[in-house]
């Protein structure tokens, strides 16, 4: 995998807008995502956070009639260029979903399947073990690798999904409210895990939990329904997390992070 050494930014969006049919869900987003950092996307519900996140690995295309305008540059290549293969994009930019969704297969297969799809020729047992280690799940499942992934607890399932994502060795991991369906202890584990993962991966996380954003992220993008667009969301402020939560430059951000909003 090539890394463009001259750039600190792994993903950069330029005037990105996302449509569902005629409806413009997200408008004019300009972001630069730092490599090996955690970037949080926060904002009120319905402002297009998930839609924006999904546009980074073209998962939004699974919704019929959705399309994007503007650019999403990944290592300098436009993800929406005609010759780009969405399958390849998703290989390089993985995703973890709100609700844990392991395959109804064994824990081992959950991880090995994606690797096999991409023609992995190394030692599969090793890869499975390494991925589970990285997802801080190995110790809990090493004796039950051939049991169904669905037999695990919610938090374990989510870490299994993270391990599954890591196994195909992406550069970026997108996380769509990965802890919203979990209890506080499982949430804490996921947050600790993210801290570990950021050494090797760039993480973009959507969260409605502002404390979580403050705790885990280095950068925060604040989304709101844009002025003048009835139902279209956009990023109104993007900065270091610290700054967003202590001295935001936009009044709306301040209202939101201090809880005065909605």
């Amino acid at each position, binding site marked *: *995998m090539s890394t463009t050494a001259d750039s600190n930014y792994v993903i950069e969006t330029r005037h990105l807008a996302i449509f569902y049919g005629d409806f413009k869900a997200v408008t004019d987003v300009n972001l630069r995502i730092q490599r090996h950092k955690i970037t949080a996307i926060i904002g009120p519900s319905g402002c297009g956070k998930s839609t924006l996140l999904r546009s980074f690995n073209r998962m939004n295309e699974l919704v019929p009639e959705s399309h994007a305008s503007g650019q999403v540059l990944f290592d300098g290549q436009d993800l929406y260029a005609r*010759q*780009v293969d969405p399958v390849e994009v998703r290989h*390089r930019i993985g995703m973890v979903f709100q609700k844990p969704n392991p395959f109804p297969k064994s824990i081992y297969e959950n991880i090995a399947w994606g690797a096999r799809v991409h*023609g992995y020729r190394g030692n599969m047992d090793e890869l499975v073990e390494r991925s589970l280690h*990285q997802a801080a799940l190995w110790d809990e499942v090493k004796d039950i690798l051939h049991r169904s992934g669905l037999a695990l607890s919610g938090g374990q399932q989510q870490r299994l999904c993270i391990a599954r994502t890591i196994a*195909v060795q992406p550069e970026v991991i997108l996380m769509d409210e990965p802890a919203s369906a979990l209890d506080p202890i499982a949430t804490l584990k996921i947050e600790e895990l993210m801290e570990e993962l950021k050494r090797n991966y760039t993480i973009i996380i959507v969260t409605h939990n502002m404390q979580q954003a403050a705790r885990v992220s280095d950068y925060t993008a604040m989304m709101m329904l844009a002025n003048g667009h009835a139902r279209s969301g956009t990023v109104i402020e993007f900065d270091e997390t610290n700054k967003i939560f202590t001295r935001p430059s936009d009044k709306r951000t301040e209202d939101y992070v201090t809880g005065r909003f909605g």
Partner: protein
Amino acid sequence: MPGKKEAAQGTGYPVRKEGLRKRRRVGETIIQSLLFFAGFFSIFTTLGIVYELGKEALLFFRTPEVDPWEFLTGTSWQPHINEFGILPLATSTFITSLIAMTIAIPLGMAAAIYLSEYASHKVRRTLKPILEILAGLPTIVYGYFALMFVTPLLRSLFGNDVVQIYNMASGGLVMGILILPLIASMSEDALNAVPRALREAAYGLGATKLEVVLKVVVPAALSGIAAAIIVGISRAIGETMIVAVSVGAGPNFTFNPFQSAETMTGHIVRISGGDLSYDSIDYNSIFAIGLLLFFITLTLNIVSQRIVRRFREVYE
């Protein structure tokens, strides 16, 4: 935990020089084409039906002995003397279907209401499979039942001189039993789709169960029930074996349900079951009748689908 470089290098994965560029996945394309063919195949079936029925029917109408106007209005179908009026066949199709629907609509709807609104979970679990079995029996079995049970029953009730051995009433009655579970199950689906909130609103006003059912739930599900009825009618018109076995084997222009007659479907079965040569008028005539049958049932099906779609839009 492996170091930064190790993970980034992607050990074990083949190196892809083309980066994000589209790769040619030939297998993927072939499979997708095959799947599209499978999806498109049913269009060929329809085209085949329309083309073949149309072509042969045209041959039928082109023969000098046949007059299209007479075909639709003539009251005598006697190919050996070149009389091709479809009315005797059409009326018996109409009468048997009418009898069937008279049985199936009220009973089917009542059964649907009972199963959906009254029956306990346990009762429904026993009754539904029974109705499903009833709907799943081959129609030839119903034909046997009509001839061997219902006809003797009718004859003992109304007298052997009134009821002929082959008669429209017994075929129609048994067809009604066949269609009953169809209407019941489709109507039940429609009743189940009515939101709980609507029922609760009515109960909240102090309505009795019957009032909730008859004045709130059934009207709300009416279009779904209507669609079920239309599908039932279409099924009755196209039903073949029951009438072929029990209604009779000769066109008869009559409105007396106790007399024997021959329906459109019954006629097709009788003609094609004999030794027919491919170029006779007889052979072509079954295509003309088939075409008429096809258009009637197609129209009914389209209407019912329209109704169902509109119904879904209301509640989903």
